[in-house]
């Protein structure tokens, strides 16, 4: 039961709770009012019986004094006129003498004349004791639970207060029960009518209260499987706890994304570092025998006398080895840190250097050089980075497109921001962009970005690429060297 309640969705739990509270409240209020009505009706009956008893006790005094049974009988019968009695009389009126014996009764079959009250039944024996001990001068009432009757005894007192007898009225509870049931029925019907309005209202309010929570839960359940916009579009905005939870959720999504990006970057950086180590290792291993082979060929060319076939073969070998050397050299990137400090002129040189490529493809260059004085950075690798990225951008830009180059620096780092229009890079490709030979079509640039990356790494900088909309942007941050 409790686990079923625990597992129930708030979508139902909140409306259900509200409805249950409404129903319980209505039931409790009805029960209290019903109990009140019961007490009022019963109290009214007792008060009526006492009033009648007091009236009769005054009227009966002469008859009791002069032992006139018949006139007493006529008096006790008068209030009962017109009451039809079945097997169990609804009202009985009995007059007791001072000793507690029946003087006269409206129902002599039940209260035979002269019979002591105590002999009539246990309830009456109890009443007799109550009359004798508890209050001989004030009315006594008692409930006869066996027969569902209310017993009211009113003393008959002489003018000097002497106790001469008792008027005993017994009322069946059935006298007020029909009234009570009628009141109860009315109460229940009105309660049900109220519930008919309140329960749907409560349900609706409860459902509305639960909507932000269930929306949040659904969004949370979809983390990882739905795009972020879809996760947050249905979030409830507000300053209450659920609103706060929503904001926390958004913050968590941000952090998750950031973490995932960082992990991706770390993996990419690790991979690139491993590739760098591998290529450097391989390059060194190749360079040593390669240097020997090239030396041998040079020596052979200067001192040997090869025939034409050998000469052609040697020449072929020489060109092949030269290509190997170039390739390995390109892979083995080593920034030359000993070059002069970077000056604004270096930047403008590069602008001039890329002019032929720009005109070839009719690409416009937006040049924004914010560097106005020499910077503590080695000029050669920075120039190479900038020229690589610019050439890459010009090639990637649309025919007659635009390349923007923005250079900024502060007292700690230089920022190169190069962006081009044109087709964006596929996400799958973007991940491996800086790896050697990742761009299969253009062999030239396939190592250009690799070289750029290696140079940036060696300068302890960072390079970021974003490709979205119709814009691809490379941002390079290069921290100033400690002492250049």
């Amino acid at each position, binding site marked *: 039961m409790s686990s079923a309640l625990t597992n129930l969705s708030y979508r139902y739990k909140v409306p259900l709770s509200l409805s249950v509270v409404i129903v319980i409240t209505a039931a409790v209020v009805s029960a209290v009012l019903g109990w009140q009505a019961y007490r009022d009706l019963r109290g009214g009956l007792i008060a009526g019986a006492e009033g009648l008893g007091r009236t009769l006790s005054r009227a009966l005094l002469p008859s009791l*004094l002069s032992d*006139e049974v*018949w006139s007493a009988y006529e008096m006790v019968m008068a209030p009962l006129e017109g009451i039809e009695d079945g097997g169990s009389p609804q009202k009985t009126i009995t007059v007791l003498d001072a000793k507690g014996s029946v003087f006269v009764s409206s129902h002599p079959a039940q209260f035979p004349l*002269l019979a002591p009250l105590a002999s009539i039944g246990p309830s009456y024996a109890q009443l007799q004791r109550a009359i004798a001990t508890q209050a001989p001068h004030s009315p006594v009432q008692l409930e006869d639970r066996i027969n569902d009757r209310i017993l009211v005894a009113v003393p008959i007192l002489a003018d000097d207060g002497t106790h001469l007898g008792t008027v005993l009225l017994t009322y069946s509870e059935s006298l007020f029960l029909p009234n009570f049931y009628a009141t109860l029925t009315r109460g229940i019907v009105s309660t049900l009518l109220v519930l008919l309005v309140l329960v749907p209202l409560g349900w609706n309010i409860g459902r509305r209260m639960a909507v932000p929570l269930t929306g949040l839960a659904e969004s949370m359940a979809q983390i990882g499987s739905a795009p972020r916009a879809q996760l947050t579009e249905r979030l409830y905005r507000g300053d209450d706890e659920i609103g706060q939870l929503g904001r926390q959720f958004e913050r968590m999504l941000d952090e998750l994304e950031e973490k995932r990006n960082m992990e991706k970057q770390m993996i990419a950086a690790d991979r690139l570092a491993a590739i760098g180590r591998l290529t450097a290792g391989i390059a060194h291993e190749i360079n040593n025998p390669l240097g020997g082979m090239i030396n041998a060929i040079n020596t052979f060319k200067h001192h040997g006398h090869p025939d034409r076939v050998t000469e052609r073969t040697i020449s072929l070998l020489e060109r092949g080895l030269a290509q190997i050397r170039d390739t390995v050299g390109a892979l083995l990137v080593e920034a030359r840190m000993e070059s002069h400090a970077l000056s604004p002129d270096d930047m403008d040189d590069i602008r001039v250097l890329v002019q032929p490529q720009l005109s070839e493809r009719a690409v416009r260059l937006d040049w924004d050089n914010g560097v106005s004085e020499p910077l503590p950075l080695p000029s050669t690798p920075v120039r190479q980075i900038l020229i690589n990225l610019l050439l890459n951008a010009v090639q990637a830009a649309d025919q007659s497109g635009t390349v923007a180059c923005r250079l900024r620096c502060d007292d700690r780092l230089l920022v190169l921001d190069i962006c081009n229009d044109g087709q964006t890079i596929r996400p799958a490709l973007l991940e491996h962009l800086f790896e050697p030979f990742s761009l299969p079509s253009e062999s030239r640039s396939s190592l250009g970005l690799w070289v750029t990356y290696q140079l940036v790494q060696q300068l302890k900088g960072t390079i970021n690429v974003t490709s979205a909309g119709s814009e691809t942007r490379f941002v390079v941050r290069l921290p100033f060297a400690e002492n250049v």
Partner: protein
Amino acid sequence: MGHGRRTLEPAAVSESRRRALRQAAALLLAGLAPPTRGQSRSRVIRIGTTAVILNDQFSFLDEWARYLQAQIGRPVSFVHRSRYREITELLLSDELDFAWVCGYPYVSHRQAMRLLAVPLYRGRPLYRSYLIVPSPDLKTSSFADLKGEIFAYSDPNSNSGFLVPQYEMLRAGLDPLTLFRKSFFTYAHGKVVVAVANGIAHGGAVDGYVWETLALRTPELTRRTRVAAKSDEYGFPPLVARRSIDESEFRSMQKVLTGMPDHPAGQSLLKQLNLDGFARPEERLFDGIAKILAYVSTRQRLVP
């Protein structure tokens, strides 16, 4: 007063109260009544009744008064009292001209009353006293069977409702003072029937004519009672005049009463009374009552 020792004290109290009331009423009447009580044609003829006849008698008495008034040509007024003795006393003090009394008061006060007419019930001026019990009681057939029970008399000055049962009990060797655990008076025969029917009393003495008439009018009441025994026949309660009544007045009233069956209105009234008519009475009709009165009074003190 002598029917039960238990009632002696309270009865004395109520008796003194009644007497005081009566004196007050007499003073009032003396102030209102014309000073001369002669033969004035406009003087009201006053007739006393008790519950000798039926309970719901007031509209009937009005009707009867109009009838008599029309016949005699004088205003007639009925004076109703609940106790027999009050009527007797009013008659004895000449405050009534006529009265319908029981045979018992008549034989007790023969010297002060003059027999005017006697009703004919089932053709004869006779009736009985009935001993009735609640209908579930199928065993009781005599007073002896009611030993230790509660008994209802009608009036201490009633023949059928008191004197006859006293006589019957004494004759059967029973003591009316100790036979019953308790006895009381209802002051009307009809109420004795109610008391027995409702179980207030286990037995009652009732005018046989009243019981039979009730059996016609309200059989659902009498059905709840059973006649356990019937007494001998006695003279029917007569109409009497005060001794000092004017002879012509007496004659004209007697003539009107005995002539009632000759008029449709009179017949209608007699039918309501369940009577056949009125006859000129003979004194010896009440010898039976006188005899049992003598029998009872030698053995028991009776109400004067």
